[in-house]
């Protein structure tokens, strides 16, 4: 094909789709998908003192907060399988959560007001996470205490497992549950992150 060949001209005319065009088309898709009820999961990332966090929400509420160490791509794959593959990067739905988290990390917020969606949690784990939310800012409790308040004092292991599988850490404050000996114990975001959160809450 030569320079005056119509097919060459046609393909040259359309070859470059610049980033600005794709950004505006994406924004348009986000708006259309949301208004048509197709945006089953919206997500964004936010920077925080404990690393980049992935935030994901269904129309019902915040469904997932993920640490960098979990691999955000892997987390999104799981959301596609467990909730819906109709997933878009769409920050608007997460604006409120992002703002509350920023205030929390600044020491200006003690309670989260965002609506959560615990659809990824079932059975006793759901009970445990419901009770977790009553552990107040700046305080801690043991796994044994948590099992007891959730109504199954013998189920300490199950309570610990509910914490380690908490899909909405920070907002559902599993970092406030520590070992009976006072050590911080494990955390999906790493023991150092858990320590940092407890120090933040103790200082504020």
């Amino acid at each position, binding site marked *: 094909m*030569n320079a*005056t*060949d*119509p*097919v060459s*001209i*046609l*393909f040259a*005319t*359309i*070859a470059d*789709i610049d980033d600005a*065009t*794709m950004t505006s*088309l*994406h924004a*348009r*898709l986000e708006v*259309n*998908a949301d208004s*048509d009820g*197709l945006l089953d*999961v919206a*997500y964004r990332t936010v920077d925080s003192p404990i690393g980049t966090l992935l935030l994901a929400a269904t129309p019902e509420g915040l469904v997932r907060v993920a640490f960098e160490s979990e691999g955000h791509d892997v987390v*999104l*794959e799981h*959301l*596609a*399988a467990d909730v*819906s*593959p*109709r*997933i*878009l*990067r769409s920050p608007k739905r997460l604006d409120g959560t992002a703002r509350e988290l920023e205030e929390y990390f600044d020491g200006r917020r003690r309670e989260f007001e965002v609506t959560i969606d615990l659809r990824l949690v079932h059975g006793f784990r759901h009970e445990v996470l419901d009770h977790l939310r009553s552990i107040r800012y700046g305080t801690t409790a043991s796994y044994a205490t948590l099992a007891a308040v959730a109504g199954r004092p013998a189920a300490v292991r199950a309570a610990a497992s509910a914490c380690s599988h908490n899909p909405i850490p920070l907002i559902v404050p599993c970092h406030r549950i520590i070992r009976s000996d006072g050590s911080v114990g494990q955390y999906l975001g790493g023991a150092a992150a858990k320590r940092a959160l407890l120090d933040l809450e103790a200082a504020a």
Partner: protein
Amino acid sequence: MTVPPFELVVNHHGPTVMRVCRALLRPADAEDAWAETFIAAMRAYPTLRPDSNVRGWLVTIAHRKALDQIRSSSRSANPSGEIERLADRAAAAGEDPMSPPDTDLWDAVQSLTPHQQAAVVHHHVAGVPFAEIGRLLGISAAAARRSSADGVANLRRRYSPNADPQEVTT
């Protein structure tokens, strides 16, 4: 096994689908066709088989949306239809209606048969193999290859009447 997050589909295939829309439509209409393509795709996405050729699937939707746009704009702006309009314009200028020199590129693309358009944009714009194009159009791979070649030949004839005829056959 489930399909990956739709965001990946938009990132991987969005620019290609936009090129397809631009090949078929003028710039303003191309963005509308892209938007309609991706909203339709997102609606159907959970039922897409994980082993599908996603690019071919999207380009097929885009082509259909582009045809809808062409039909609705020719209905509103030109009830006599695209090809007739081209012929009239050429005749008014005293030219051979089969090779109007003032025909712009999109008019030429829109004058192709739907199969030719589909084969040309799938193959030349989106890089979809002929076997897959044939499957999407419900024809053989050889027929898809022929539609693409005929489409390119027609484009050359319509868009630049002075093109070397030797080139058309290659």
